[in-house]
């Protein structure tokens, strides 16, 4: 892995109210988020390459979808669902500063 690549390992939830025209903003799961009736989407990047996506569920509990993630380039992430339960997608990491992780908008947000 490229040493200059931003560290994204961990569980992140979408702070959609902080999005800009070009970036989607995420914070760690234990961040003091503002209450939201729509459950926040989330992504959990494990160091071993496994991945869990959280999507809003019908009972308001986020549903967990398991997959894998891999770094393609310094700022490019590829997420796949090897068992075919989801379409693969790419993410571009814009920045990681403390408890704020920003992706380019329009890829998964």
């Amino acid at each position, binding site marked *: 892995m490229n040493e200059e690549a931003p560290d994204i390992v961990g569980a992140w939830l979408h702070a959609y109210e902080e999005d800009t025209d070009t970036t989607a903003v995420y914070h760690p799961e234990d961040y003091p988020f503002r*209450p939201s*009736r729509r459950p926040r989407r989330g992504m959990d990047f494990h160091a071993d390459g496994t991945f869990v996506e959280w999507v809003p569920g019908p*009972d*308001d*509990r986020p549903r967990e*979808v398991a997959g894998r993630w891999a770094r393609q380039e310094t700022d490019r992430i590829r997420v796949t669902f090897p*068992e075919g339960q*989801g379409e693969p997608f790419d993410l571009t990491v814009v920045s990681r500063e403390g408890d704020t992780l920003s992706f380019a908008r329009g890829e998964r947000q």
Partner: protein
Amino acid sequence: MIDEPEFTEPLARELCGTMPVHRRLLNESMAYRAQRSAIENQATQYRLGGRRISRSGTISIPVVVHVVHNTDEQNISDGQIYSQIEILNQDFRAANPDVTQVPPVWQPLVADTMIEFHLATRNPNGDPTDGIIRVRTTRSSFSHHDDAVKSSATGGADPWPSDQYLNMWVCQLRGGLLGYAQFPGGPPDTDGVVIRHSAFGNMGTVAQPFHLGRTATHEVGHWLNLYHIWGDDGQGCSGDDKVADTPNQGGGNTGMPTFPHISCNNGPNGDMFMNYMDYTDDAGMMMFTTGQSTRMNACLEGPRASFLIPQLARVGGPEERTVAAASAGGPRVSGNGSQRELEQLLQEVLKDTRAALSVISGSR
């Protein structure tokens, strides 16, 4: 057999997971799916008119509130809890003052579900209780991942028997989550609803714009088998909430939309965003429909019949009202229940139970 709605796909995805919740669902998913299919079939019979609601009086469901707190602030007052029960009773009986704000075109659909709620007066051992359990926890917050708030072994509070009580856990939830529910047919030891303390009731620690107690109304709707009004298909137009009198709409609405809000070619009236099962702010939701009422009452005559049958058995004469009042905190029914209704309901429930068992055991 009726297909499950669109959310079954994420359930299938979970089969390949590695998290604890995944493992639990792996073990339970087949039985759960069978249960949900049987429940949906039963609800469909009511929706299509093949069956009618047997009960004509009100039912009052006993509630136990587990206040799981890490700080004194999270240990909400009795008054805040009472305010939530009162709101549930208003909302489910269409007695909420803001029901007048429903657009005129949908006023005829506003439903009194004839379902009420009360704090339990007897605990599972039959002893008097105020229906409120207070548990101090070392956990600063709870996540949706593991249902930890629902077990004393993981810093939460154990449920009371979920076939006799509606369990409500009140705590600090992580990630800004307001609450979540469990549909009928799920594991009994996690059955109930979880509500963020700052969205419970309409006083004390509540915070705008979720300060009017509608999170619990919404979650109890799920507990009684209601789906989100847009059908849980993201922003698409193919989702179905299995209720005929709610308009098809795109995704969930948030905030305070203005009428009409059009999606999925549903003009001129658009989305029924003022429905409790949308995602609008508390002040923006104020109605269940007749179809939703039928679905919830079908649930009470099916997978949650354990709340109804004891009441029907007690109704019929003045002494039985007394028995009901002195019972083990059990449900109460008032109105025109009859022995005939009870027998009819028991037969239907037995039929459903046999059908569900045969599905699970694979004997048909």
